[in-house]
């Protein structure tokens, strides 16, 4: 029976810099529908972590509720995961992140989890510039409750039963950009060549890194008339640029001609390379990015790729001035002021 994944792996699979094979980043076999875009995103996460040589246990995955939020079970078995409550991943993530600033935090959410029940927490995590990767697996519908439109369903998109959506869809990337997110990207589950470098860059970004990923629901939203199907998405995608991510330790080999590409250096020394960038906009200029996003949307296309990045991003811990040591490592000697200090306090209340 195939809901168990064989343990055998390709015997010649290479290992990464820290000696892990890709298999070391895998999770349980997905229980999502066959062909679900979410599974592709899980695979892209596995690929990214493998290529980034992240120790699997030094990453924590947090999700809310929904099909997307089940996904963290299907990657990184050696990482702790937390499938919390609906729409509340950002707050759980905030607490987790505050407790230990040394881990990499990967939040996984869906369009219901983020654009409806969790929209409040979503914008507040952005506001705080929480150091995390926030992935929305966006299929425009509620899968687990059998296919209702979600808040990101596009205006005019047809449901499986043929009804047209009469409400405006929420564009999470536009919202994130307006709210001041310091890293905003959009991608498609079916395009790993774009998605993997984006995830890698997001993991290296110090601050809130948002990736809205169109991830078709094969069961409820992959029919003709849906604007979040595999074929519609493929036909309407317009990428900002070809993207490559160069971690800090690697040498940069590609040399761009002027006007051909842009290189964005991150805090940790790694580099994002944007090749064949559309002209007259600057991904480090928020206004220019917002303009571009709306222009492409107006033309009926879906802009994907790295939409905006703030290379000067200051993440929540910096804003909070928290100590360099993870707070969860502090003990009595660091935290308890002692009885002398307490007696001073008492004295001030007499």
């Amino acid at each position, binding site marked *: 029976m195939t809901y168990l994944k064989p343990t055998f792996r390709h015997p010649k699979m290479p290992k990464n810099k820290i000696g892990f094979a890709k298999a070391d980043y895998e999770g349980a076999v*997905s229980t999502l529908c066959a062909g679900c875009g979410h599974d592709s995103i899980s695979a892209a996460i596995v690929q990214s972590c493998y290529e980034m040589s992240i120790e699997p246990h030094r990453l924590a995955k947090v999700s809310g509720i929904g099909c997307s939020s089940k996904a963290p079970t299907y990657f990184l078995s050696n990482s702790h995961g937390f499938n919390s409550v609906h729409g509340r991943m950002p707050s759980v993530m905030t607490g987790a992140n505050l407790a230990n600033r040394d881990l990499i935090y990967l939040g996984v959410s869906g369009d219901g989890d983020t654009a409806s029940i969790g929209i409040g927490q979503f914008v507040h995590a952005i506001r705080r510039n929480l150091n995390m990767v926030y992935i929305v697996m966006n299929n425009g519908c509620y899968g687990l409750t059998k296919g209702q439109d979600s808040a990101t369903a596009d205006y005019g998109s047809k449901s499986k039963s043929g009804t047209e959506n009469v409400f405006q869809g929420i564009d999470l990337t536009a919202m994130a950009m307006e709210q001041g997110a310091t890293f905003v990207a959009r991608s498609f589950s079916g395009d790993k060549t774009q998605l993997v470098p984006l995830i890698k860059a997001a993991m290296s970004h110090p601050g809130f890194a948002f990736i809205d990923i169109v991830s078709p629901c094969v069961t409820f939203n992959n029919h003709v008339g849906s604007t979040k199907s595999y074929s519609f998405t493929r036909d309407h995608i317009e990428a900002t640029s070809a993207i490559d991510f160069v971690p800090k330790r690697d040498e940069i080999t590609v040399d761009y001609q002027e006007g051909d590409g842009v290189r964005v250096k991150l805090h940790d020394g790694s580099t994002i390379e944007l090749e064949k960038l559309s002209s007259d906009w600057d991904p480090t200029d928020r206004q220019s990015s917002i303009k571009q996003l709306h222009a492409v949307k107006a033309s009926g296309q879906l802009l994907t790729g790295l939409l905006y990045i703030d290379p000067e991003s200051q993440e929540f811990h910096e804003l909070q001035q928290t100590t360099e040591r993870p707070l969860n490592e502090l003990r009595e000697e660091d935290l308890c002021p002692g009885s002398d200090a307490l007696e001073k306090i008492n004295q001030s209340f007499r």
Partner: protein
Amino acid sequence: MIAAERYTEAYMINWESNVFPGILGRTCDRPCEPACRRGRVEEEPVAICRLKRVAADNKGEVKSLMPDAPAEKNGKKVALIGGGPASLTVARDLAPLGYEIHLYDEWHKGGGMMRTQIPAFRLPEEVLDEEVNYILDMGIHTHFNTYVDSLKEIIDKGYDAIFIGTGAPRGRDLNLPGREEADANVHIGIEFLANVAFEHVDKIGEKVIVLGGGNTAMDCCRTSRRIGGKEVNVVVRSAFETMKASPWEIEDAQREDIPILNNMPPKEFVVENGKLKGVKFGKVKAEYDETGRRKLVPTGEPDVFIEADDVIIAIGQDNYCPWIERDLGIEFGDWDLPILDKETFQSTLPSVFFGGDSAFGPENVITAVAHGHQAAISMHHYCEGKDVKERLAPMTNLVSQKMGIHEWTYDSFIADDLRYKVPHEDKAISLKERKVEVELGFSESTGFKEAQRCLNCDVQTVFTTDSCIECDACMDICPTSCITFTNNGEEEDLRTRLSAPAENLTQDLYVSEVLPTKRVMVKDEDVCLHCGLCAEKCPTTAWDMQKFLYNVTKAH
């Protein structure tokens, strides 16, 4: 089928092609096991050989399932010289077609080297008799105890075709100082084994040296242990690692307290007062010249003398057919080997075919069987006046195996178990009695577990380009990273762009038609587990698991 406890059917499927499941299930050299794909993902292949024995041991009545020779013959007569596996295979294939078959052998029973060279503790006589008799009972005219000393005489009897499967009957000797004086206590391996098998010899000295590192040497030393040999040493010229014997046979010998001394070429049979005292050996090491050729050079250490009452020389065997007159039109090449068509096994005399060891030199039983099948087709075509070279393609068929979500009609579960060891008879018992079979065979439950290790080569992943929506699910789930969606290219180029290294160049890549995104699906079958997850995860059944039926071409 073994896992499903359908032993009889399993036996018959096996019998169709390899003719001697019970025999081969014990004694085969297992050329198939290195091909087993299990060996590509872990240390050891499925114990295919010993599973055949499980089928043979547990089968029900099979004779009624085997073809009968028709009462009405087709009027053609063929002669088979030699009663070994090659000839018996020819007989098995041609008898049902109505041929009148005459089988000649010098011994009193069929089986050839399977009887003379494989000791009873590895292959009980009953098993041999049973499977030989299934064939002989197809109305074969046997001419036992008949040593054919002239092919011409046979030809003159007017057979429509003649098959020669007389093996490689001559054991090599070793002409060293003292050889002649010691002759009474120096034996040729295969002769020694035959003599023991036919009970012409029932004892040997306490101290025995076996010279040689092949399977015959292993059989000789182990036989010696059973007929009086107490200190039995196997001595090989070169390094242990270069020994020709199957690893499991070497293990079995060692388990019976037989040391294997290596890098020691024999120099002299030491004889005192006309009696063999032992053998003097030099000490060498391997050196390789620029061309990579190995040369054994003396280490300079003093020679070693090993005492022995008897020495058995098992250093190989040669073809030898003095009984084939050289003026019959059968041409011979080097080493007294006939010149044959490599596919039809036809000699330069069109009516004469060769097979088994007598065709291309010493090989093994399963090769002899393969020769037999091919020679039988050739002989049939020859007798029918058709092109001897003609071969029908093997029958193949693909049938979908999907039952439902998570469920396939084949056993898609991939067991992690390592290869199981076959249990052995207690050493004290098996060494005492020569005919006690050492290997006990897998129990039914172990057989089941071992069969579960099979990676289902019989079930193929079949891709339909038109149905694919390029969701990547198959690529993402594949445990062994066999599947890649990438831009099209030449195979050589594709191999560099796959999810995992594709270094087995003998395994062609499976490449789809071009997909809507201009990419192609490329599958490197090399380490595919046939677990079915790609098809499981495919929302459009672009992937399907289909059972692959294969019937080897036989004379018909």
